[in-house]
């Protein structure tokens, strides 16, 4: 009955096409304008800050798919970020040597280097998604804190394994002779994977962020996405209404891991970063969780705003470096006390003004 009605109500292509493609095009245009107009005005430092903000937004919004949408509690997000970063870094670093004989940035905007970088991002994202599937499928049977600690364990195991990898090879002749396996295990170990060319630009960061926002928002505003939300609200009722909770949890996990992988890839190619296993451990995961909770669980715009604020706050406080982390800690504690539902609760920014009728009838 539903499907018959659905085909009857199917709108025309002329109506659908702009709606389907429009936001994606708009995202690319916005990213392009940011790069072309805003970056030159702000200068390189704010450019870097903008990239940091964008990457943190990617991480927060993607984690929100798991923590905010399905209400599962993952604190191993930095692990997926690391997977994406290392895979993408290896692709562009060693790929550059194979293709062009050095790891220097190659070609201009959308040149050969950029395309290789893009490939790296996608491959990194896919590997992270694969890791998400491997971790998610068995452990999503667990609930609450148990899931959290398993994801945390995954991140820690990954960190130790990355620390065991060999030095980065930087001699072209050696790279040519090395087997794929050698290259895949020469990721810098404890010193970090340095030497990855700086391909990340504001443009790429915000193109990816735009993509994620489109995906997240469309998910939230669809039957598919409401299935995610129902798991957060009441898992037992969701199952009784025919929602395959395991399937949707794994799906959220994989999707989130994919975008975390892309964020990691962007991070790996950002000016002035070195991929270091030590810095992609549980503390980084905590940072991302904090962004999600502060923004409001399930609120996409809230996660964006919180990620932005929490990237800027330490920068503002840099002048008071002595007390910086103390202030940061106190801010967290106070925030949780004053506004426990996060900045926006589960709502989006533009929904804030909308009154919720019936709120006064809370008591029966």
């Amino acid at each position: 009955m539903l499907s018959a009605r659905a085909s009857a109500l199917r709108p025309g292509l002329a109506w659908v096409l702009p709606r389907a493609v429009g936001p994606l095009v708009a995202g690319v245009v916005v990213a392009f304008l940011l790069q072309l107009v805003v970056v030159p005005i702000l200068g390189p430092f704010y450019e870097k800050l903008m990239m940091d903000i964008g990457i943190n937004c990617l991480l927060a919004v993607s984690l929100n798919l798991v923590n905010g949408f399905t209400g599962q509690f993952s604190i191993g997000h930095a692990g997926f970020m690391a997977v994406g970063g290392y895979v993408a870094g290896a692709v562009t670093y060693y790929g550059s040597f194979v293709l062009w004989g050095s790891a220097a940035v190659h070609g201009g905007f959308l040149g050969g280097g950029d395309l290789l970088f893009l490939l790296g991002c996608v491959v990194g994202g896919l590997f992270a998604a694969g890791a998400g599937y491997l971790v998610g499928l068995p452990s999503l049977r667990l609930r609450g804190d148990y899931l959290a600690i398993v994801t945390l364990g995954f991140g820690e195991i990954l960190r130790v394994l990355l620390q065991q990898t060999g030095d980065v090879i930087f001699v072209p002749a050696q790279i040519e002779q090395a087997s794929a396996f050698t290259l895949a295990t020469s990721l810098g170990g404890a010193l970090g994977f340095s030497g990855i060319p700086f391909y990340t630009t504001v443009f790429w960061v915000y193109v990816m962020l735009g993509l994620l926002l489109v995906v997240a928002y469309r998910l939230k505003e669809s039957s598919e996405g409401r299935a995610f939300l129902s798991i957060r609200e009441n898992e037992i009722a969701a199952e009784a209404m025919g929602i395959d909770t395991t399937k949707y949890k794994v799906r959220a996990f994989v999707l989130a891991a994919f975008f975390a992988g892309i964020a990691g890839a962007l991070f790996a190619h950002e000016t002035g970063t070195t991929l270091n296993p030590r810095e992609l451990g549980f503390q980084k995961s905590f940072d991302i969780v904090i962004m999600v909770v502060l923004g409001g669980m399930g609120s996409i715009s809230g996660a964006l705003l919180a990620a932005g604020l929490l990237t800027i706050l330490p920068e503002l406080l840099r002048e008071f470096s002595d007390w910086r982390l103390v202030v940061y800690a106190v801010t967290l504690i106070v925030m949780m006390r004053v506004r426990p539902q996060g900045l926006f609760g589960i709502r989006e920014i533009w929904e804030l003004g909308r009154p919720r009728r019936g709120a006064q009838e809370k008591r029966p």
Partner: protein
Amino acid sequence: MTQPNAAILDVQAISISFGGLKAVTDFSLSLPPGALQGLIGPNGAGKTTVFNLLTGVYTPQTGEILLAGERLNGQKPNRIAASGLARTFQNIRLFGDLTVLDNVRVACHVRAETGFAAAILRTRAHYGEEAAIRERAHRLLEIFGLSHRATDLARNLPYGDQRRLEIARALATGPKVLLLDEPAAGMNPQEKMALADLIAFVRREFGLTILLIEHDMGLVMRICERITVIDHGVTIARGTPAEIQADPAVIEAYLGAPDPPDASAEGP
């Protein structure tokens, strides 16, 4: 009137025990298409456990559950819901932070055919289905008198509305059989009357078969065609409302065992 072989829901001697406690023993039930039957019993008799067994929350240790000939034992709850068995919960389990409309729309998802890719790419099929789902959800809300509440959060509804929303949500899954767990709990007499009419209406309208747990005997006796009574997980009686009202085992179960005859009366 009962034709066991044509039953849409056929439950044969299911049992479950937790630890040493036998929660439900050899429970059998046969619901012909279009029936409206009641399941009653004192507190803690195992009524909700029966529902949990039928809907896959627990797996029966013995016995068979057949829904229109399809075996449901051991299936996960979501598969059972997809097969056409829907339920409400005694302790209301709405999606509190979703709107009333979304609560119903979530339940429509089980009948949806477009998937993840369509949702992300926003295909024509996606828009068509979303429109169909919205249409259907609004219709259900209208039937249950909740249309004006569509954009409220479910947790902000008054109690009676929440109960009705649960039924609307269960109906949205497009069930063949509907299990209602104390739908009238906490309602006042007028609301109960209205609810009885509503149940009768949706049964007709959607061609449903309904099994009902209820404490309000008036309601049960008024609308159910047949009633099954359980106590301590054991079926102690089944029959028409009139038969049940006259059954001494039922009276004993509800009022407790009659006082043991005292020693003096036990004369030779």
